């Protein structure tokens, strides 16, 4: 057992560190500033072109075929350099890899991985949140196309996206889980209306709702078979629960590093309970980074993701919310001056126990699928 770098891992780490000396874009913190999203696409492309994004995926889609633990090194070094975290889209790639045919994979995956195409995910609806299978958006066949009608919400990056992975009902006669299909839908067309949803911390660029009114998608853009939308969605959300798929261990490490820098510059200026709140954020953030190392090492056995994604999602949530509480404690509820970043970090952290499946849903899954507790 070894938490340290093998020689080739150390070489990769060194190369990334050197690259970051020149290429760190100095973006504001993610999810606290609309400026972040305007620079995010360029950052994704730059990181990819440098050879440091998507490195663990197969070469056929633009990856480098490296073991999963290399993503840990990327997260470590991005955080240490104060650079933005890795773009969070691994779950889309994993879902398409597992369910789509070769043609769909070849057409879409390279653009997702290299950052040239921007994607969003049209899953939740106003009346289909935790109970996703009750979704009502419909896809009606019309020649070589499907016509999409419906309303999606909590759609991250919808304003920026050229493509939407949308779930829609193609069969109204079968059981509700079986009548759903998935499509790669072009967003830039009449029949698609995107509206921003300002979040409680005031950012407007990250979150949106999308109305489909006669939007058209080629039948050849169906991802997986007709009726395979539900298992595809489950693949995606299970990966969406994994901190390493999101690069979030690095995101929290960066936030903690910023807080530590602020407090260590003025140790007399903070009360004991503020320092204690920060110490807990350090502990939680380090825990998550180490936990990710353990999970990714397990994959060297060929163990694929399963219900333990719910364990990781809860750990990730507790970490983000401990970091959020430290940010609130250190920054105070009343922002001093124009910089209210720490308050925004705190407010954004409340979303983590909802997005990608609520903490209550994750607990249900841990109880039934890991602990084997009887059905309620």
């Amino acid at each position, binding site marked *: *057992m*070894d*938490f*340290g*770098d*093998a020689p080739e*891992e150390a070489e990769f780490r060194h190369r990334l560190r050197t690259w970051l000396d020149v290429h760190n874009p100095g973006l504001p913190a993610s999810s606290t500033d609309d400026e972040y999203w305007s620079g995010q696409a360029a950052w994704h492309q730059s990181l990819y072109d440098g050879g440091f994004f998507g490195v663990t995926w197969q070469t056929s889609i633009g990856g480098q075929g490296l073991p999963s*633990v290399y993503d*840990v*090194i990327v997260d470590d070094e991005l955080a240490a350099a104060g650079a933005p975290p890795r773009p969070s889209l691994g779950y889309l790639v994993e879902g398409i890899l597992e369910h789509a045919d070769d043609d769909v994979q070849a057409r879409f995956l390279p653009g997702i991985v290299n950052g040239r195409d921007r994607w969003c995910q049209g899953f939740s609806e106003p009346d289909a949140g935790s109970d996703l299978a009750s979704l009502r958006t419909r896809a009606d066949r019309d020649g070589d196309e499907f016509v999409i009608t419906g309303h999606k919400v909590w759609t991250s990056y919808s304003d920026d996206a050229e493509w939407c992975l949308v779930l829609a009902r193609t069969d109204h006669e079968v059981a509700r889980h079986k009548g759903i299909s998935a499509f790669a839908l072009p967003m830039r067309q009449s029949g698609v209306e995107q509206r921003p949803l300002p979040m409680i911390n005031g950012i407007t660029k990250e979150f949106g709702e999308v109305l489909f009114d006669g939007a058209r998608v080629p039948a050849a853009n169906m991802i997986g078979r007709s009726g395979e939308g539900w298992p595809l969605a489950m693949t995606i959300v299970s990966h969406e629960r994994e901190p390493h798929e999101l690069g979030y261990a690095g995101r929290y490490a960066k936030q903690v590093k910023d807080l*530590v820098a602020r*407090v*260590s510059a003025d*140790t*007399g200026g*903070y009360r*004991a309970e503020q*320092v*204690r709140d*920060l*110490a*807990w954020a*350090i*502990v*939680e953030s*380090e*825990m*998550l980074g*180490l*936990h990710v*190392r*353990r999970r990714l*090492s*397990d994959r*060297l*056995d060929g163990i694929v993701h399963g219900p*333990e994604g719910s*364990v990781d999602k*809860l*750990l990730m949530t*507790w970490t983000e919310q401990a970091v959020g509480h430290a940010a609130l404690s250190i920054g105070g509820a009343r922002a001093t001056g124009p910089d209210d970043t720490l308050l925004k970090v705190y407010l954004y952290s409340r979303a983590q126990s909802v997005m990608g499946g609520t903490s*209550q849903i*994750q*607990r*249900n899954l*841990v*109880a*039934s699928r*890991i*602990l*084997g*507790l*009887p*059905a*309620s």
Partner: protein
Amino acid sequence: MDVRLTSEQQALRYSVAQVVDRLGPGTVRDLDDGERAAKLDAAVDASGWRELRVPLEGRAPLASGVETAVVAEELGRGLADTPFLGPTLAAELRRLAGAPPAGTNETVAFTGSLAAAAVVGPGAPPGTIAPDARGATAALVLVPHGSGHALASVPLGPTRPGTDLTRPGAVVEPGPAVPVELPDSRPLADDDLSTWTALGLSLDCADLVGVMRGAVDLAVGYACARRQFDRPIGSFQAVQHLLADAFVLMEGSRSVALHAAWSVDALEPGDALAAAAVAKAYCARAARTVCETAIQVHGGIGNTWECLAHVFLRRALLSTDVLGGVGTSLDRVVAHHGIGGDRGLR
């Protein structure tokens, strides 16, 4: 980077699990079965697990912090009422000081709060106690020596029942501390004590992870068996969520505990101690919650002496106190990151 246990480490874990499952206490009443406890003690004695930190050649230990933690975790899971932490830490002190192995069963004496090894002048101060002292007749203490510390041995009284029903402690008897001969006259430096403390905290964390596993297993089993309102209580979402949280806390704890154990021999002493402090803060907080959950899920039974849930909690409380619990560990984190000014430096 590959943080899986090696096949040898997995085999070791399996061996320890077999011994504790066969000879460990399965019920509270089993704790009074001296014949069983003697068999467990003999099996652990024969295994050599208490000698993992004895030097193999030169100063390097026979096994790393990881193997030592693997043993500690399984002993904790099985509530093994046989000494491990005390003798292992005594062997580590002797290894770091270059002293010969002890001739008799030996443990380590701590300050009354258990947060640090006892440092004595001519004799041990009142209140100096040795946890995990079953079978031990003497305990090591530190004696100031130049800029570092030498070792001395103090006699122990009989063990007394304490918080932890599986690992009784003993009070240090009044009397002089007998210096331990250090052949190369090399006192323990601060770095040595950081390594020693890092090992001790790592073993505490491993024990806490084991205790959490045992407590969750116990509570899940009960939640499946116990019926109310014509259904198992484990089918109620309120109970399920308590147990899910407990399981998740245990998993996070295992990740930090493994890293702490690896750090003991792989990182510089100061960094190993910082890793151990992070792990101890996380594991100690988690273990109390998990053990309290186990009691809650058992309802009224959980508050009776005959239910094993409190034996897990009591063991967790001792492992928490040895070398400092949540507060002490957070202070170490604060000091390591330089965010407390003078405040965190304790």
